[in-house]
């Protein structure tokens, strides 16, 4: 399970856009978004590289918060 924060999500559709992109990554089994905090929890059947997450988040039009 991987948890990270996404900036810029402000409504249920934003959460849907980010979820859609992350779910398109091979091996991703589930994506859960907590809208008020921007926290995203992802589970996958393989290690997901940070660059893959960043690319997917940016493809949806949002930013990955620096950790």
């Amino acid at each position: 399970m991987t948890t990270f924060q996404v900036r810029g999500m402000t409504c249920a559709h934003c959460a849907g856009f980010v979820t859609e992109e992350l779910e398109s990554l091979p091996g991703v089994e589930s994506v859960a978004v907590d809208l008020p905090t921007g926290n995203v929890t992802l589970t996958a059947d393989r290690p997901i590289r940070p660059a893959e997450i960043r690319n997917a988040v940016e493809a949806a039009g949002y930013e990955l918060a620096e950790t």
Partner: protein
Amino acid sequence: MSDLSAREFVANFFESFTREVVAGGDAAAVVDRYYTPDIEQVADGVTLDRQRLIDHLRPVRKNVISCAYDVHEAIRTADRVAARFTIHAETRRGRTISTEVYLFGELAPDGRIRRTTQATRDVSAS
């Protein structure tokens, strides 16, 4: 707009706004046609002012191809509106994200939205 029924007002407002958003053009100008400069939109605990609303249009434009609105019920007085409706957003990946919205809003005399409080839930077909 005062001749329209409340349901028509809500449907026309959001359909027209979304059409302009998706069509492109200056995001600030689009927002200013539909929302007063002191807009405060609180949706699911997230507060948007005018600038955040404008910023929100960029990812919407990137992801949404079209939107359809089903307004299930609505009530409108001179400066208040309440509505329950479902937004069906078709994304560039071919998925439809459906969100039911419960909205309470305050209107300016010119029909623009000044303040809204909204709760939403995802009703997309899985």
